[in-house]
């Protein structure tokens, strides 16, 4: 398959922009139109819950490329432009700024955060504007409650401690999770939070909340209640596929694609919104990691320009909590406990791996790890990934 003269990309963030850049770097010389509903130029989201909320960076530090660079690449960027619906068969995109015909469409619309149904006053975080609102709240808050035991909740709790606020991290389940590593690091994460003064409120079912001028009281099923003057809820995201509901695409917790990001003739999807079929299980899976969006965007652009899909992305995720840098690479089976590959003498800096009974390493976690050791563990994950697909018949 070769690309036609006009490629339209919906979603002007890391996935969409990387696709546009790669098309150009690989020599595509047709039109590239990148549309996004935010009024900002593309920016990075990972710093929002890190450098931005703690006030180390201003909003401009998260921007990805200057206007001039985007122009130089011959990318037509349309901000404040919303895709409203799609005629997938006639290849027409209906937007708030008019209809656009396309030869190829790349969908990169990401996710939106779920609001807490019982705590409607809770702030949440996906955009730069959300991040600035949380930063401003943290500057004055004495007591902060963060709802959500995932990594973004953990990062905001860590930021709140930097401001010196009394901080509670509330989770319905008993475990803390980190991206694709799931709950395998839960006890390490809990220890790190506790050492840094975060009060963990886990296994806690919220039954209601009352807001008044002074803050919010959160009520729990066991009758307890907790007051906070700033509440942030990070309880997961929903793929932004509303605008595709009337189209003929298969949408089921994301845009369902084959193993190369192909959703329908002339239509591909990448990043947080895309559910690519896993080559091992044939099930569509969504991965909400920055590197996944980047690598899927590169793979789709390579396929459109050269007709051949790029390599299968290996998940890569990072975080920083209370000054501890955590990197995760590869796949993690919830049934397979992580094991330290060093002698474990330094609990604060180590490499942990997910190794099966044939000694194959599927995933590696660097916990403040020395880069050389983590790189060696990564190499063994990449080596396993290279042999494994041969054992499986692809769908």
């Amino acid at each position, binding site marked *: 398959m070769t690309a036609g003269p006009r490629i339209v990309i919906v979603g002007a963030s890391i996935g969409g922009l990387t696709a546009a850049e*790669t098309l150009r770097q690989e020599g595509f010389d047709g039109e590239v139109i990148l549309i996004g509903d935010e009024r900002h130029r593309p920016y990075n989201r*990972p710093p929002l819950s890190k450098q931005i909320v703690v006030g180390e960076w201003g909003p401009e530090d998260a921007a990805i490329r200057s206007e001039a660079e985007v122009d130089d690449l011959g990318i037509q960027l349309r901000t404040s432009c919303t895709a409203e619906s799609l005629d997938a068969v006639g290849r027409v995109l209906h937007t708030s700024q008019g209809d656009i015909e396309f030869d190829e469409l790349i969908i990169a619309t990401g996710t939106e955060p779920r609001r807490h149904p019982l705590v409607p006053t809770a702030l949440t975080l996906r955009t730069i504007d959300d991040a600035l609102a949380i930063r401003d709240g943290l500057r004055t808050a004495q007591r902060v409650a963060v709802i959500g035991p995932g990594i973004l909740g953990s990062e905001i709790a860590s930021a709140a401690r930097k401001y010196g606020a009394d901080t509670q991290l509330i989770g319905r389940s008993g475990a803390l999770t980190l991206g694709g590593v799931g709950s395998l690091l839960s006890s390490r994460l809990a220890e790190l939070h506790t050492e840094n003064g975060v009060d963990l409120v886990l296994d806690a079912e919220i039954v209601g909340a009352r807001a008044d001028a002074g803050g919010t009281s959160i009520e729990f099923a066991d009758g307890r209640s907790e007051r906070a003057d700033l509440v942030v809820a990070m309880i997961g995201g929903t793929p932004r596929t509303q605008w595709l509901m009337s189209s003929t695409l298969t949408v089921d917790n994301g845009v369902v694609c084959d193993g190369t990001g192909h959703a329908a003739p002339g239509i591909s999807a990448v990043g947080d919104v895309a559910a690519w079929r896993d080559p091992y299980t044939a099930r569509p899976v969504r991965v909400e990691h*920055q590197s996944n969006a*980047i690598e899927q965007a590169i793979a789709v652009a390579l396929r459109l320009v050269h007709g051949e899909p790029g390599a299968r992305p290996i998940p890569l995720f*990072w975080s920083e909590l209370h000054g501890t*840098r955590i990197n995760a690479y590869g796949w993690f089976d919830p049934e397979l406990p992580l094991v330290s590959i060093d002698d474990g003498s330094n609990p604060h800096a180590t490499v942990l791996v997910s190794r099966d009974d044939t000694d194959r390493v599927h995933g590696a976690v660097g916990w403040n*790890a020395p880069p050389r050791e983590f*790189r060696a563990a990564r190499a063994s994950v990449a080596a396993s990934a290279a042999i494994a697909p041969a054992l499986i018949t692809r769908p």
Partner: protein
Amino acid sequence: MVVVVQRDACVGAGQCTLVAPDVFDQDDDGIVLLLEPEVEGALLEAANKAARLCPARAIAVSAQ
């Protein structure tokens, strides 16, 4: 072409040292180090690959 790295944005993911080991290295904290600030040919291609793979967008390759 000129390569610039923004060390305070780097998250130590190490994508750059994997795809362009002759252009980038990492220090003891995993933070990127620039070995070759000026690149052409195969090194330029590798540096471009690293720039687009870098999850922190900490690498820029430009004419000057």
